[in-house]
């Protein structure tokens, strides 16, 4: 039983990461009907921001500021910079193509993904950058329940992931900006006619989605330690799968999908074999698509004929 709970904790932690990235996918799809394949690379940029913040403050073994303050700066800076990058991408790459056939922004998104990867390669080099989290957050800290270990970084990721998800849900459901976002997602032209600033709303959506990817990037760096220009690809792919499984365009669906994929990966690795993890995860995607084509929490779109 302890083994089950250990795998559950591991799965939920990884799933929280996928959920945060999947939320960005879903938000952008919901508002623009665009599959933003560059989203995984924003995760990578966030991870680099976190790495350079650690270096800026003396490196993992000789930090010049307290760890909580360091973490705060890492997350805030990653969210801000990656959010800003997301807005810039929307402004210069996607907005000019807003009324173009849907294939055009899709190809552009793939191009942006390659651009970000190669820009990182050029700027930061191809070598692994290592957070060395254990140097400033002790591996022995955390919670031990029987033989189940939840270390401090996992707790941090779980708590922060939960805060981000709940915060986003509240923002979308209870604020004026959230109402604008929902209106633009429902009908962009009607929203514009009602006086909503569509450009601002879309930019804000990109900012929020990208900021979440940036936060997830720092979390990934703290959890997995390694940062390279290509780490966004796999995470992006898994998050996209999570968004589709949950119902792309649905924010609760993205959260559920991310957690489901994370836990499924962990359980398959634990109880079947790591060899077949991806096979089962993508089989899960196919099964969900066959049974519920709109995803677990997605709504089927009605089309007038």
């Amino acid at each position, binding site marked *: 039983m302890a083994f089950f709970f250990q795998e559950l904790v591991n799965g939920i932690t990884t799933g929280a990461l996928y959920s945060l990235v999947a939320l960005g996918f879903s938000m952008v799809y919901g508002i623009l009907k665009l599959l933003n394949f560059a989203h995984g690379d924003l995760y990578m940029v966030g991870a680099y921001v976190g790495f350079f913040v650690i270096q800026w403050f003396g490196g993992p073994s000789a930090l010049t500021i307290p760890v909580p303050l360091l973490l705060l700066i890492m997350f805030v800076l990653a969210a801000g910079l990656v959010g800003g990058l997301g807005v810039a991408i929307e402004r210069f790459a996607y907005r000019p193509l807003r009324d173009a056939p849907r294939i055009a922004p899709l190809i552009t998104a793939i191009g942006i993904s390659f651009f970000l990867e190669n820009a990182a390669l050029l700027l930061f080099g191809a070598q692994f950058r290592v957070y060395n989290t254990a140097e400033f957050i002790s591996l022995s800290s955390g919670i031990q329940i029987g033989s189940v270990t939840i270390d401090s970084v996992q707790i941090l990721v779980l708590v922060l992931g939960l805060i981000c998800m709940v915060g986003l849900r509240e923002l979308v459901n209870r604020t004026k900006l959230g109402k604008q976002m929902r209106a633009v997602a429902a009908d962009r032209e009607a929203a514009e006619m009602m006086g909503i600033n569509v450009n601002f709303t879309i930019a804000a959506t990109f900012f929020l989605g990208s900021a979440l990817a940036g936060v997830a990037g720092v979390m990934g760096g703290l959890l997995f330690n390694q940062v390279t220009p290509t780490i966004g690809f796999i995470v992006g792919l898994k998050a996209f799968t999570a968004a589709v499984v949950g119902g792309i365009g649905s924010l609760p669906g993205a959260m559920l999908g991310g957690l489901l994929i994370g836990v499924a990966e962990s359980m398959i690795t634990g109880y079947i074999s*790591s060899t077949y993890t991806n096979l089962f995860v993508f089989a899960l995607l196919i099964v969900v698509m066959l049974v519920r084509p709109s995803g677990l929490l997605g709504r089927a779109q009605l089309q007038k004929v």
Partner: protein
Amino acid sequence: MKGSVIAAAAALGALAVAGCGSSSSSTNSAGGATKPCVASVGMEGPLTGPVAVLGQEQLHFAQLAVLKDNLVNKTKISIVQGDTQLDPKQATTVTQQFTSNSKIVAVVGPAGSQEVLAVAPLMSRAGLAFISGSATAAALTTGKYPTFFRTVSKDSVQGPQDANYIINNLHPKALMIIDDQEAYSTGLVSAMVPIFKTAGIKVDHESVSQKLTDFSSLVAKVTPATTVVVLPWQVASNAQQFGRNLAQQHKKAVIFGTDGLFSPGTFSINGSYVSSFGPDITAIPADAAIAALAKTKYGNFGTFGPPVFAAQHVVDEAIASVCKSGQTPSRANVLAAIKNTNEATTILGKPIKFTSTGDVVNGKFFLFKIDSTGKYQLIPG
């Protein structure tokens, strides 16, 4: 700075003298040739990417070998670099560039077994000799690739050697072995698992992508009875992360890495074992000059560089012998000369002579244990 330049110059001088003295076949000198002995040699390695630190070391040692051999043999051999990033696709692209460059008469590299498998047909078709200083998969020297050679031993030596060490010295009742889905890794697993099973050890064989960085789910499967985890991997930072995940979950299993993980500074989990195809040349008295020069010019190094130095030296000597015989170096005559290599002493502290399938005769592996400061300590024997 000035001091280090003087030290490097002194070491180079000593090296040239040592090289003159130890050059295995005196017939190799091209000094008597009437026209300059000019040739280009391709060098394929992971110069950037996750294992760039190893690729750079290989490049540096290839450059040192050329520096020394040009001085000793009075040749004008130059290196053409090709970055493979340890990726078979990238290695194929680089090889296509090399095979279409008629000035290149031989190639040193590539580094990984999977890359060799990808480029070997191209090299064979072009009649281009290539010598790897780190590709160890047994399948590479079955005679299928007539232009392939290596200066290191092979996994069919490493696999059983490591497996027997684990059985006889670590005495596990159960162990986990995890491949990274690459030819290098799966080949080693195939060589080791039957030996473990014959010894009555319970084996949990797992498999993960080389791109995976989260091993927490896998580590959760390490039971208290599993006292050894064997990682035949090539990305040292992944093994480091695996070690951290073990510590996070308070697991006490010892990591045993194969030569792909030999990377001081990157993989430094206390108490782990790592095997290596290359010796620690700083412990070989005859290599003192080259070790000093390498350290002065490029800083600290591991075991990936010296076998490439040996590979480059074999090529350089082959070119020099061709020139001395009055011929112009070509792919065909350099290949023939490489096949006849018979180096009595080399940087690796052992002779180099190739079998008919390109293996080095009497190859062996070396074993190191990582101490609490992250240093690799050679285990005698």
